[in-house]
């Protein structure tokens, strides 16, 4: 059962990339995250982290590791819903999957 869903996921992903839809969705997602202020929030959080830890003690990679969980948690539900709806629309249009 899990295998089948993994396979579907892979096929879907390939289809999305091929048709350029994945790139478009990424753009859309970027735009929405800016609109909802998520980016500004993350920027502020980065600044805070840097101030706390000190500039010389931090590499970019460490900073990314630090902020990633918070970033994921802060994504507004509305955006998640919208992206899901977008995917559903895409699936509906390309039923030959």
């Amino acid at each position, binding site marked *: 059962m899990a295998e089948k869903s993994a396979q579907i996921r892979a096929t879907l992903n390939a289809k999305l990339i091929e048709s350029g839809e994945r790139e478009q969705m990424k753009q859309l997602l970027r735009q929405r995250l*800016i609109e909802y202020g998520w980016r500004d929030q993350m*920027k502020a959080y980065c*600044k805070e982290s*840097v101030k706390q830890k*000190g*500039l*010389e003690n931090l*590499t*970019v*990679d460490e900073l990314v590791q630090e902020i990633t969980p918070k970033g994921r948690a802060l994504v507004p539900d509305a955006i998640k819903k919208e992206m899901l709806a977008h995917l559903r629309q895409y699936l509906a249009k390309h039923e030959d999957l």
Partner: protein
Amino acid sequence: MIELSSATTSSSFPSMGLVSSPPRSVCSTTNSTSSPTVVVQTRLHKFPCQEIEKLKQKYRIQHTSCFTHLQNLINKHRIPKCRECGLDEQCRICLDCSLCLCRHHAQQHSRLCSHALAIDIKRLFVHCYICGDVQYDSVFERARRKIILLQQNSSNNSPSSSTIGGICGLLNLGNTCFMNSVLQAFVHAPVLRDCFLSEKQHHCEFQDTNHTITNCIMCQLRQLYHHVHEGQQRSNEPFVPSQLLYLIWTHENHLAGFEEQDAQELLMALFNIIHSQNSNDDVDDEKTCSCIIDRFFKGALQSEITCSQCGSVSTKNDLVRDISLQLPFASSNDECFPSSSYSLENCLWRFTHSETLSNFYCDKCQMSMSANIKLTISQAPIVACFHLKRFQYVKKSRSKMRKKISAHISFPDELDLTPYMTITNFNKDHNKYCLFAVISHFGSSVETGHYMCYVKLQLQNRWFRCDDHCVCEVSAEEVFKSECYLLFYQRMSVEPTS
């Protein structure tokens, strides 16, 4: 939206003066007494990154060549894929050997080959494997911002239609978009078409015995014209204007080099070269010069000064090849216009609006008086070039960066110059002009910005955007919404010229 994430960290870095500071190992504790926090002292361990300095020295990378260098690396790997494993996410390009590798293999590679630096192919930041972190360098940063700006502009491009005749792209030779834009506008001036396309074999009037195709600007322009109009046969390959560039460099030294320059300066330089190579022997009598510049681009401005005391009027006529307009809000004296209505007509109104001169020496009164000065166009050229003064030199910054006024200024498709002309007997219908080219500037300054030229194919009434080698059709809306810098109008219903 340009990602200026690195800008937030750059403000806390020391000024450029420290770039040439002593080598990393010498981190004297003695001069920490003046620094406000301990952080400044320890940061010297990591910044500036010695590896970047070494690389810059090795390849003699400066501001100007860094952009070309990075652009070439990116163009090499249009479809990023790791050489070792084929992964296409988060690839990096080694700055020493230009291999494209994923993060894991890039790290491996840097250890094996002792190549310390790589740039991220998407975000273009520089990663140093010795420092173990992303590093900031002002030269690379400037190049990075410019590339990102260009990428965002060109992401709007649809693949250029290869079946359009009469238009073709110009290859960017290293920050030469300022020249490419001017050439495009020039080539699409309707009135010049006949001059350049009439004969295949050009009998050049260039008097000099040293004449060769390479040093004669008319021959060079003729070559460009023919390429543009025969482009269809060659599936619209972009023209490489290297000889033109060299010609301009040798004649106008101040424009030489691979730095981004001011397009208006280039326009004037181009006019100068054409005029000097094609003017007749009697230089004094400018009225008889038959070069294309004087025939089509030359106009005259009249300045009329009225003494406020005795009322005597002194008139002076100046020949001009373009009209440079101050923006209406540039000085604080201008409260005439609300901020939402900046237009070319406003600028022209301000230009021809009478002003008060406080220290004018009146010959009749024999002393300094206040006077009224009024500028009008006494002779309107066949091709009118308007230059909007968007760039201002900022004195306080150490670099020569020119600050730009980015406000949108609207401009019409058809322009009537009658209200701005000197009142004499003339046929009012002769002052209607039609727009054929717009050079717009994108970005916040000359050095980090980009020029593009919008041209109208007259016969088809369609607008095209010329972004170096990328030419594609665009809506008129995009043209009129852009940040115009140079506007080119041609007089409608041109009389046959002698």
